[in-house]
Structure formats: C-alpha cells, structure tokens
C-alpha cells in the first residue's frame, strides 16, 4: 500500500530521468511521456479505490514514524485531486504530441511535464508542511522552465511576472514555515493540527495563518494577488497554458483547503468568515469582470480561472465555523467544484488552441464563423463555456447549489448574492465570446499563426473530446460525484480521524 502512495511521485521522477537519458531521441521521449501519464492515471485510480475501501492511507518514508519522518497521506480529497490531475496531464500530453514545436521538445518539454506532475502529486500527498514547500518548489521550477521555454517577448515578460510573484509567494511560505516550526516545534500536519488546537496563544497562530493564507492565496490567484495569472497564462504554447490552467492554481486551492481545515481552524470567524470570505467574493467579481473585457481568447479564459478560484474558496470560507451539516455541504461543494474546474479549464484552453489553429488567431474580434465551419468545435466549446458559467446540467452547477445553500443557511446571503452576480457576469462573458468567435460571419483569415504546417488534428481532438466526455459524465453522474465529494468533506472535517491515521497513539 505504501507503494501505491509513492507511485504518483516516483513514477514521474523515474520517467523524467529516463526521458533525459534519451535527450536526442524525441520519439522515445514522447512514448515515455504518454506511458507516464497512463501509468500515473492507473496508479492514482488504484490509490483512489484503496482509499475508498480502507479510509485514510499513510505511507512512511524510510519507515520513520510520524512526526519524525515524512509521511504521505491519502484521503478521499487528495485521491480525487490526484485522479483528476492524471486525467488532465494525460489529455495535455496527448495534445502536445502534435502541437509542441521541435525546439521546445528538444529542450526537455516532456521531462518537464513529468517533473511538474511529480511536484503536483507530491503536494497532494504529503502530510508534512515543509515537504509541501519542497513539492511546491519542484512544480514551480518545472512550470518556470515550461513557461519561459522558447518564446518571444510577450512570453518572456509574462514569465518574468509569473516567476517573480511566485517567488514572493514561496518566500512568504518559507517565512511562515520557519515561524510555525519555531513556535510549534513540529512540521507534521497532523501534529500541527493537535498542537494548534491546544495552543495557549491562538492569536499568534492566527497571525501565522495569515502567512500561509497569503502564500497559498498568491498561488491560487485570489484577489488581489492574482496579477501574475492573467499576465502570463496566455503567453506560452496552448498545451502549456492548458496544463497550468488545469493544475497550478488548484494546488494553491488544495493547500488552502488542507491547511485551513486541518491546522488553522482556531479562529474561523476571522480567518474564514472575514478574510477568506471577503477575498473569495471579490475574486469572483474581479475574475468575471476581467473576462468580459478581454479580446484575447486565452486571456479571457485566464480570468475565468480567477473567478472559479474565487468560487472554490468561497465554499471553504463558508465552511469555517458553520454547523457540521452546512460545513459538510459547503466543503463538498468546493471539492466537487474544484474537480470539475480542473477538467473544464484544461478543456477550454486546449480548445482555444484548436480554435486558433482553425481561425489563425486568438483574437476574439478576428476569429468568427466557426459555428458554421466547425460545428464539432462549436459544440465542444459551448459545453465548456456553459460549464464555466455554471449552467446546469454541467458539473459546476450542483457544487454551486451546495455552496450557495450553505451560504444561505449560514446567513451569508449577501455573499451568495455577489457570487450569483458573478455567475451572471460570467454568463455574459462566455455569451460574448461565443457570439463573437463562433456566430459572427468569418473574417478574412488572419495569418498570425506560426503554427500552420499541415498537421493531423486528431491528436488535438482526441484529448479535448475525452475531457468533454469526462465533463458530461461528471454532470450526468452528479449523484455519485457529490456523494464522493461529501465523503471527502466529512473526512476533512473529521480532523481527529486524520490525526489518528497519521500519528496513531503518538501525539
């Protein structure tokens, strides 16, 4: 069982190393990349099944018991995140087979994707806060290189902003870590949970919580910390931005959810109901407003990421200090929302690549005419767009209902109202994108694409269609999906269960 927990990290590591050995043989690298993604999916699925059967699983590295050694912990939430990560990575890897240029490929595109996957998986699994920092750095450095690889001016400038602000986040994280260890004497999340609960000076803990809130808030792209995201996500190749869109901010959201359900629960009135709630609500509005005014398709989509992060965090904020029942509802909504958001974001970003391929532009004002000329793409995009706007029966709807219901139940109707207003703005934004890019008569075809060589588009359509199928299944299967999300939420709220699983008797 320990192997199952280690595989999501070790498999990409081994594959990245192997792929580096075949530095000049791109065909081998591609094969390895696809196999890695498939293997990762298999391993995370197996892990998920095991977690569902046995509850929280714990693996100790070097067989050192917690809290002295580093442990990996898999619960339903991390299992769900891992499986979704595998799906997203698989889709992007297949997509990139025909879309990434030879230059980028020859500078380690595929090993970098593996490294990113490794970092993300480690972050989802680790039960140690410093180890979380290390995985954050792994995924960050991989994303830095992917972001900057190749590239003209726009991409490099985007990369600079991305790198700088993420480094700031890392250093805040690091400072928070030092202070946390200095005052709590431990790094193990379970033990931190216990010690925070027993802390004689909870006010100081709240102070430290702000460091983590800020560090993770930057990575998750919460208002007003999201500046880096719309500055950079639209600049690298489609496959890269799709991968980032699906995974990176969600790691930040994951870290927020993990730490603010397990560790920093000492003062939810302030941390959750004031800070997180306020930031989340404004984030929803800011993202939706931003999406309305963009001309670049990918930049508009970048703002939809911001809005959806806001919505995910809204659920977390509502859950803090709520009654058991409503907290479960809100968190389950958040979890189900994050899962589908990962799929949707990747889907629409990949689609934007196909759109550009067909129309020659990312500029919404110049695309035009795809409804008539490419109805398949139009339908795929429509489904993605409706999911962005939270229209039923797409899978973002039920989670939204859950979070809103919890918000109404907790007397936070105003915030729910703002979230709904955000939904309306988002609906307007996607309707505008759709009516410009798909409905309008085609423009004279602009040739700004350097990506015009006749390429088989099959490798691009397969992953996008696959993701759309996943999306539809998540929507149709809302019942079971929400059931699993609810179980995950219950586990998150049952911190005693987590502590027992990790520490056993050794507190």
């Amino acid at each position, binding site marked *: 069982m320990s192997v199952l927990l280690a595989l999501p990290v070790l498999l990409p*590591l081994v594959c990245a190393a192997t792929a580096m050995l075949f530095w000049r043989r791109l065909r081998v690298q591609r094969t390895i990349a696809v196999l890695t993604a498939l293997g990762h999916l298999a391993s995370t699925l197996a892990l998920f099944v095991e977690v569902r059967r046995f509850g929280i699983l714990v693996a100790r*590295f070097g067989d*050192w018991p917690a809290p*002295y*050694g580093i442990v990996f912990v898999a619960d339903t939430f991390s299992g769900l995140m891992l499986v979704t990560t595998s799906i997203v990575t698989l889709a992007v890897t297949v997509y990139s087979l025909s879309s990434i240029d030879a230059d980028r490929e020859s500078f*380690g595109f595929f*090993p970098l994707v593996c490294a990113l996957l490794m970092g993300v998986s*480690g972050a989802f699994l680790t039960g140690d806060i410093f180890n979380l920092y*290390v995985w954050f*750095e792994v995924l960050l450095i991989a994303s*830095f*290189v992917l972001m900057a*690889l190749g590239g003209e001016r726009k991409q490099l400038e985007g990369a600079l902003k991305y790198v*700088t602000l993420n480094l*700031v986040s890392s250093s805040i994280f690091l400072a928070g870590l030092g202070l946390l*260890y*200095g005052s709590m*004497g431990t790094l193990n999340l379970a033990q931190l949970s216990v*010690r925070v609960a*027993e*802390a004689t*000076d909870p*006010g100081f*803990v709240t*102070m430290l*919580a*702000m460091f983590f809130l*800020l560090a993770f808030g930057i990575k998750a792209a919460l208002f*007003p*910390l999201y*500046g880096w995201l719309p*500055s950079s996500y639209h600049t690298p190749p489609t496959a890269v931005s799709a991968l980032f869109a699906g995974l990176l901010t969600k790691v930040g959201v994951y870290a927020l959810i993990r730490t603010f359900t397990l560790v920093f629960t000492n003062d939810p009135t*302030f941390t959750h109901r*004031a*800070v997180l709630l306020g930031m989340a609500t404004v984030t929803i509005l800011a993202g939706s*407003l*931003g999406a*309305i*005014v963009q001309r670049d398709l990918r930049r508009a989509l970048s703002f939809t990421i911001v809005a959806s992060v806001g919505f995910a965090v809204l659920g977390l904020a509502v859950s803090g200090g709520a009654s058991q029942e409503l907290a479960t*509802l809100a968190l389950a909504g958040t979890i189900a929302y994050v899962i589908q958001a990962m799929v949707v974001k990747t889907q629409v970003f990949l689609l934007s690549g196909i759109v550009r391929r067909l129309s020659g532009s990312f500029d919404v004002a110049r695309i035009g005419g795809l409804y008539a000329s490419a109805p398949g793409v139009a339908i795929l995009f429509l489904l993605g767009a409706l999911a962005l706007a939270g*229209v039923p*029966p797409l899978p973002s709807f*039920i989670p939204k*209902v*859950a979070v809103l*219901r919890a918000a*109404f139940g907790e007397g936070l*109707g105003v915030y729910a*109202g703002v979230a*709904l*207003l955000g*939904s*309306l703005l988002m609906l307007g934004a996607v309707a505008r994108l759709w*009516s410009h890019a798909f409905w*309008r*008569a085609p423009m004279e075809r602009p040739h700004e694409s350097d990506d015009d060589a006749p390429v088989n588009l099959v490798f691009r359509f397969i992953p996008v269609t696959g993701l759309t199928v996943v999306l539809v299944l998540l929507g149709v299967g*809302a*019942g079971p999906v*929400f059931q699993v999300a*609810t179980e995950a939420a219950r586990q998150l709220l049952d911190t005693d269960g987590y502590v027992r699983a990790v520490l056993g008797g050794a507190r």
Partner: protein
Amino acid sequence: MVTPALAILSLFTLGLLAPFLFALLPRHAGKLLCLPPAFWCGWFWSKTPASGQTWTSPWIPELGITFSFRLDGLASLFAILITGIGAMVLLYTEGYCGAKPGSGRLYGLLLLFLASMLGVVLADDAILLFLFWEATSVTSFLLIGFEHERANARRGAVQALMVTGGGGLALLAGLLVIVQQTGQGRISAWGPLAGDPLYLAMFALVAIGCFTKSAQFPFHFWLPNAMTAPTPVSAYLHSATMVKAGVYLLARLSGSLGGTEVWTWTLTLVGGATMLTGTLLALRQTDLKRLLAYSTVAALGTMVFVLARGGAEAASAFAAFVLAHALYKGALFLVAGAIDHTADSRDAFRLGGLWQRAPVLATASTLAGLGMMGVAPLAFLAKETLVDGLLSPPDVPSLIVFGVMAAGAVAIAGIVAFRPFFGKADPAIADGHKPDAPLLTGPAVLAVLGIVGGLTPTFVFERIGGPVAAAIGGGTDPHPWALWHGFGAPLAFSVGTLALGLAVYRAWPAWIARAAPWPSFGFDRAYDAGLRGTVSVARAFTRTIQNGRLRAYLQTTIATFLVLVTLAAVRWNPSPQIRLDTALPHEALLALAMLLAVLAAVRSVSRLAAVVTLGVVGFGVALTYALFGAPDLAMTQIAVETLTVILFVLTFYHLPRFARGSGTRTRAVDALLATGVGATMAAITLVASQRLLGTPISAHFAENSLAEAHGRNVVNVILVDYRGLDTLGEITVLSIAGLGVVALWTFGRRAAKGGSA
C-alpha cells in the same frame, strides 16, 4: 418506468438525433419528428389526473435533491400545450425551411427546447425545475441566434440570455432560500410560506425570475428583440411556451407564496403595467412579428394579473385564457411566417389582398383572429370567465385596464389577422410562392381547435379547467365553463371592448402613416446603457488591477500582506513578555555590519556595489550560522553566496547601468511598505523565538540519530534519512533549474543569431 421522465428523455434523445434524421430525409424530417410529441400530447390529454400524481427517485441525497416529477392539472395543461403545439411547429418547420442545409440544427434545438420545457412543468423538485429552466434559456439563446450571421440576431440572443439568465439566478437564490428554510426540496411539499421570516426575500427573488422569463414590465423589452428568431421558433418559444414558464411557476407557487398583500399588489401592478405597455407598444409596430410579440407581452401581463387574485375561479379563468391564447397566438405567429414566406414581407401596413393567393391560410388566420378578438368560442369563454371574476365584486380599475387590453387585442387582431388578407394591397408587395401543406397544417389545426374547444366547454373544463383549479386554486371551481353566460354585464363588457377595438383598428393606418416615429421607449436603451456601464466598469477595474506593471503587482501583494498581518495582530492584541538575552561584542559587531551592508545595498547606485553588498550580507549570515552552532550551514551558505555573486556579476557585466531613479513620492511609498514589512518580520521573529507551544520534534533526532540511523552528524542524518524526501525534491529542483538555464541560454543565442524572433 417513470413516465414523465421517459417523455422528457425520449424527446431529448430525439433532439440529439434530429440533425442526423434531417441529413437522411431532409424533405420529411418535420412529418416524422412531429409524431413523438404528438403521441405524448395524446398521452398527457388522456392522463389528466383529478389530483396530482407524483413519481420520485433519489438523485443527490446529500443535498436533498430528488428526481421527482408531478403531473397534476396545471402540469397537464402545459404539457399538452408544449407537446401539441410543438408537434404542429415541427411540422410547420418542414414547410418553412424545406431542405435548407442547417435546418437539422433547428429541428434538433426545437426538440431539445421542447424536452426542457416539458421538464420545467413536470419537475417537482426545485433544483430539477431550475435545471430545466436554465436549459430552456440556453436552447432559446441558440434558437434566437439561429440566423447568427445577422448582428441583431446575435444581439437579441445575448439580450434574452442575459435578462432571463439574470432572472434565473435570482430564481435560483429564491428557490434555495425556500429549500433551506423548509428543509424540503419538493415543491409539492411546501406549505404556505407567508409566515416565514424570509418570506419577502423568497417572494422577491422568485418573482424576479418569473417576471424576466415571462417578459413582464419592466423586463418586457427582450421579447420583441427575440423576434429575430426564425418564425417557428417565435411561435413556439416566444408565444406559446417558454415565456409562459414564468407564469407557470407563479401559478405553481401561488399556493406557497400567494395569498399575501405583497403577492396581490405586486402581481396586479406588474401584470397591469405589462398589459398596458404591451398593448400600447404593439399598436406602434408595423412588423407582423413585433406586433404579435408586444401583444404577447400584454397577454402575459393578463395572466399574471389573473394570478394575483387567487382562488378556484381565478385558476379556472387562468386555465381558459392560457389555453385559448396558446392556440390563437401560436396560429397567428405561424400565419405570419407563412405570409412572410408567401409575400416576402411582414409589413402589416403594406400587406393586403392575400386571401386570393392563400385561401386556406386566410381562413385559418380569420379563425385565429376571431379568437384573439375574444369572439371565437374558446376565447370568448375565457374572456367571459375573466370578466365574471372582475365583476363580482366590481373592481373598476382592473376592469379599465383589462378593457384597454381587450380592445387593443381586437385592434391588433384586425391588423395582423385580417388586414394582410382582406385589406388593400400595396402593389410593391412581391408575388411570392404559395404555401404548401406543412406550412398550412399547423395554423389550421390550432385555429380550428380554438373554435372546437369552445363549443364543448364542459368536456374541456373536465380535462383542463377543473384540474387546474384543483391544482392551484385550492378546490373545485363552482362555475364550470359555459359558452353562454346570458345577457349581462360580461357580455356588455365584451361588446364594448369589441366596438372600441374596431374603432382603433379603423384609425390605425392613418395613425401609423402620420405618426412620426416616437423616440424609442426606454428599457431597451436602458439595457444597452447597463451593458455599456458594466463593460466600462469592468474595463476600468481590470485596467487598474491588471495594469501590467510588475511593481504594482508587488506593491499590492506587499500591501495585502501588511493589511492581513495588521488585522491579525489587532485581533490577537498580544501582551508580549520577551526575555532578552545578551549579545557579546563580536556578535553585535556582526549585526551592525549586516545592517550597514543592507543600507549600502539600498543606497547603491552601481550594479557592482549592489552585488558586493549582497555578498557581504550573505557572508554575515554565514558567520551567524557559524557562531550559533551550525557549521554545516555556514559552509553551505558561503559556497552558495560565492556562486550567487559570481552569477550576478557574470549575468550583468555586459548589461547597462541602472536606469534613473524613481521620484521622491514613489520612493517614500516604497520605503513605507519596506519598513512595514521589516518591522513586522522583526517583531514576529522575536515573538516566535520566545514562544514554544510544543516540544520540538528535533529533540528526538538529537537523542536517537545514532541509535536509529547510525549517523553522528544529526543534520546529515535528517537530510539523507529522516527527511530524505525533501532532499530528493531539492535535487530535482536543482536539476530542472540547470536544464532551464541551459535551455534559456541556447534559445537566447539562437534568437540572437536569427535576429528577433
């Protein structure tokens, strides 16, 4: 199996398959596709239950959402209309579109809409209902924008989506509040809610949803703009079915939300305003479809107006009016489309004399027109029933409003139903083609049903009026429908409005010819202004926040940090007891040196000086490590710091000098932020170093590293053994960074060689 679910599912599937069927049999698609809805229409007709019948199965128990459907009199009436008129419209589409490519999508979307609409009226679970509700908004969006290369079609589609979608979100909020308060997701299980503390919020939110969907004043403006849709769509969605969803839901919830002063007043005022607005605006139009659209607005207002009253009689009158209106208005819309098809014009002012060219159409139009005038049996019956209600006891203001609406309807009916056929023709009107059978069947059937239905009032009442009254009126209507109410006030009212309407009709052409176009009425413009306002707010906001300047992003981040930490500190309100240790002279000297180095770095004007001061700071840190028991750290720090300085120098050696400095104000702000961060960090560090809330786990390592891990250097043991995973990650980071440096370097050289990329 659950039959309503089966009906919805089968029609939905049919919608998905329709484009393929059209591709196979383009000339017969309508004939074939209209059969399943026709079948379901018959089924619903035969199944109308006296009391409601419910099917339910669990869906998302954690949220209390069920798959539950309920068929009662009200649902049955709407289900019959949706499937029946749907069948006629599908058939009509065949004549309207012929084998035009792309029509497969139209069939498909119409069927998807039909299934969604059926879901709205059959769903018993609030969330399920909302799901179908949104589905009708989305399919309607796609249908209005069907002729998508025309700019006004796109505008109409987006406008309809925004208005009904926005209302939909209010509705969702309202439904969720009700569900949360009652703890019950099933609509049929909601009792009267008037006593709930949140009643006003519930009512307001639900009402906004219903009013937007049903184009009530002041949200009526989207409906005429939606007339850019193909005519079958206008006939179906924007007259017979979708716009009635709001009315349906109000009727459905009248038992829970109704019966209060707020309900009665709001619905009366909004319904009345809508009736007047629709009627007056209709008379200013010359386009057949826009005339019909505004008259539909007026009719929808009437329905809301009736629902304000409550009780079995009003329910029965409501049912009669909904039925009659769907039949005659659907027929008239289809006739308008056929006229367009025949004469290539929809201009009511110029059309005329078409009866020779299309006698069957003229007959259908006449029958339907008589319905709209309230003369044809079913419509007459509906009108009499309504007026009966208003007369006992006499409600004068309502009678006046209703009278205006009824007279207007007479005039409009004259303009759209008779004038194009029997009026004088404008010679400029083209000689189009004759309508063929599929184009005629729909209007003819609907128009005839409007007559037949009224001739058998008892029979129709048993099937429709009675069950509706039982479903939402809270009992049986003591006055079953009858065609003849005898000579009395209602008849006098009818005759009066008829006469008034005919007078308006006669005056209309002269009025239109003379009337300068009024300045177009405000709400459509208000929508545009709202849209523009939203976009400019969005633009201003986004430009401010997302201004592209990295410095601004950094400042925002740092300011946020300071705000959050300050808030937490205020909340914490600490009374720190800090025990200070002493510093030895050489330690103090070291600290002083580092402080000076920082100061030098900040004030440096040359690159080299800045890098050197950075190095000094680094070595100072290394010395600190060495002084306080961390020789390993000191060594690593020295090595890394040396490398860093070398890298800095190598990288920037060839680059230009620093750009000019910032202005005084910028520097002051930055200094303030910097000092804030510095002070905060110093204070927190001091507190953290004093505050131990648990034994550090490192004690375990110091005691057991030799025994457990066989290493004497505890730091090393931790790195390679206890926390080996960190080290693995660290090595990964190092290798990838190396890879990145090489890649950037190579790409840079390539770009330099090949000119700018």
